[in-house]
């Protein structure tokens, strides 16, 4: 038992690699702070475009969204980071990763917001138009606030997914939490840094997952299916 | 109604109480339903009628008191409780038919899967039960193809299929359009004439007066008055019952 402890939760190794891992955590958080707002903004653009576009254009946009979704995020990432330089576009690694992850996560944010906008009743559009508001104002002050509230649990859920995605950055050598943990593991020839990194990811994301469950819980109803005995 | 030799109680509540989340739904209710007897539970909504019915077959577990079925305390769980439940039919306000099954399958499920009859035997039982409620021609209809009254009659057939000693009916006509109430009450009346014991929560006072052997008035979880229909409905002794009858 203590041997397992020494192997997987080695305090000395964890102590020595803590600094490295914290630096990685900072990169992970930075990347998340880039990707989540950018993805939301791009997603909102897609959703609004779909709400206002004529049907044929809406179909084109939705095909584009599905195309992005058809790529595994890691494939998109590798394409952007290793493919673009061949086209003469050299991006800093952080930017390349952020672009790829933003594209991916925006395709989901966009679909969620589209559903939210579609869920606001036509009467809201009519009422706002009859009071003389322009389309932009209607969207901004009337439709989006209601639409966002309707799909809030899904938005938070996708934010969890977006942060999880940032771990992919390690594959293209961006020094994020996972990458740093792999380096520390190699240096010490001990898996404790990996376990510590996993724990850090859980510490970061478990509360978010609980929050998603709480938001969804109002839908899931009766206690009758649960154990009574 | 029907005179039987030594009509012992089929179902007995003794000091039954039940709370939900700190709110007392039932306070020490004592009540017995004898063989062949029809007892009507009346009272405002939230007075505990549904809870009392659910305590009978332990869909709700009483906090205090005893529920006896055929003289023995009903078991609290497991296969023994399932066996007792087979001998008590229950009919719900919202019908609760299984939407993915036909009328016949709705009725045949328990004979087949709870009582372990053969597929053919369960089917025969189900057909008989559906004929008894006047739906012998709608065996293969799904619930959404039936009117509310027909759905409730299927639900009654489902409750009858295992020849229960007592039927528990929870406001069986409250969710029905007025013109459909009659057909369901007609079925219940004919079952009463056949001597099926029943405990029925209802707002249909005219029905209760005519069909019930006894009426029990519940209010705020307490049994306030009980007696023969004419006594309860014509000569209420308490202010609460008088107010209740006036409001209807």
């Amino acid at each position: 038992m203590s041997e397992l402890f020494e192997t997987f939760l080695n305090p000395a190794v964890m102590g020595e690699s803590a600094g490295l891992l914290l630096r990685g955590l900072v990169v992970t958080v930075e990347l998340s702070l880039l990707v989540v707002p950018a993805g939301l903004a791009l997603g909102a653009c897609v959703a609004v475009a779909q709400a206002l576009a004529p049907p044929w254009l809406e179909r084109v946009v939705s095909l584009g969204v599905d195309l992005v979704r058809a790529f595994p995020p890691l494939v998109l990432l590798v394409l952007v980071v290793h493919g673009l330089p061949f086209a003469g576009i050299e991006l800093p690694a952080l930017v390349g990763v952020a672009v790829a992850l933003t594209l991916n996560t925006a395709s989901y944010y966009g679909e969620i917001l589209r559903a939210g906008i579609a869920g606001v009743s036509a009467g809201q559009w009519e009422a706002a138009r009859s009071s003389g508001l322009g389309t932009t104002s209607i969207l901004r002050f009337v439709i989006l606030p209601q639409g966002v509230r309707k799909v809030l649990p899904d938005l938070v859920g996708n934010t969890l997914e977006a942060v999880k995605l940032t771990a992919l950055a390690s594959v293209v050598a961006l020094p994020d939490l996972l990458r740093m943990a792999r380096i520390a593991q190699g240096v010490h020839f001990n898996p404790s840094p990996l376990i510590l990194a996993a724990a850090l990811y859980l510490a970061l994301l478990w509360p978010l997952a609980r929050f998603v469950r709480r938001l969804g819980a109002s839908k899931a109803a009766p206690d009758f299916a649960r154990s009574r005995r | 109604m029907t005179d039987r030799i030594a009509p012992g109680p089929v179902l007995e509540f003794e000091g039954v109480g039940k709370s939900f989340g700190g709110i007392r739904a039932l306070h020490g209710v004592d009540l017995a339903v004898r063989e062949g007897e029809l007892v009507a539970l009346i009272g405002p909504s939230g007075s505990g009628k549904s809870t009392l019915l659910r305590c009978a077959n332990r869909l709700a577990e009483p906090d205090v008191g005893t529920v006896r079925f055929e003289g023995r305390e009903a078991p609290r769980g497991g296969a023994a409780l399932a066996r007792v439940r087979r001998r008590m039919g229950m009919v719900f306000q919202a019908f609760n038919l299984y939407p993915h099954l036909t009328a016949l399958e709705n009725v045949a499920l328990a004979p087949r899967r709870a009582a372990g009859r053969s597929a053919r035997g369960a089917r025969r039982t189900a057909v008989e039960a559906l004929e008894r409620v006047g739906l012998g021609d709608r065996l293969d209809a799904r619930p959404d193809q039936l009117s509310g009254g027909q759905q409730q009659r299927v639900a009654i057939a489902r409750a009858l299929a295992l020849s229960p000693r007592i039927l528990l009916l929870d406001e069986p006509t409250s969710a029905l359009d007025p013109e459909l109430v009659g057909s369901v009450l007609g079925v219940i009346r004919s079952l009463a004439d056949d001597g099926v014991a029943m405990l029925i929560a209802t707002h249909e006072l005219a029905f209760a007066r005519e069909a019930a052997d006894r009426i029990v008035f519940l209010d705020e979880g307490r049994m306030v008055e009980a007696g023969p229909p004419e006594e309860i409905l014509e000569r209420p002794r308490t202010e609460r019952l008088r107010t209740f009858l006036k409001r209807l």
Partner: protein
Amino acid sequence: MEIFFDREALALAWPAVRSGIAVTLQLALASIAAGVALGFALAVARALGGRWLRFATPAIVAYADAFRAIPPLVLLVVIYFAAPFAGLELSGFLASFAALVLVLGASAEEIFWAGITAVDRGQWEAALSTGLSRRTTLFRVILPQAVLLTVPPLTNRAIATGKNTALASVVAVPEVLNQATSIQAQTASPAPLLLAAGVYVALFLPLVRIGRWLETRAPTGGPAPAEGPP
């Protein structure tokens, strides 16, 4: 432009990528089948209750939360690189399979559970009142109604699992992405990568379209009916 469609590099890459497709499909189908089965079993265990299962419910909930919180790649790396220290040498394929199954199992459990709880409690009452056991009630009455609700979200999670097979490239499983990147390193041409991208689009675009279609025609849980601007 010709550098992107370098014929030579493509000719070199195609056999490798083609063998990668087989690996991708095997890993995807095996993980989806096992992950859905795991999620189903856990949701059923949670619904049936019982004496010892009362203690299992918090464990199931914790498992579902943890494995929906952890990035799949982190899980894969931990399994693949940490397991050998415990004397457990897993192949890249098995480690990927394990990671994908654990992740899908968590989502699938929640989806099945949500489906079960979405069925009206009157259905439980009606079935139990006729003397059916909890198990029979669950399998004959509740699940037939619940499963319909679970199809759209399960389809989406299955697609996500299929796409996540690309993570296996990190632990040297010779699936599509891994084959493409290794040929790319040999040829110094982006053509193999583009070939792989084309393969993924061919594999997943139809599924993504189907997933969208399922979601819009779902009775509940999907996006609300379109009522856009007049």
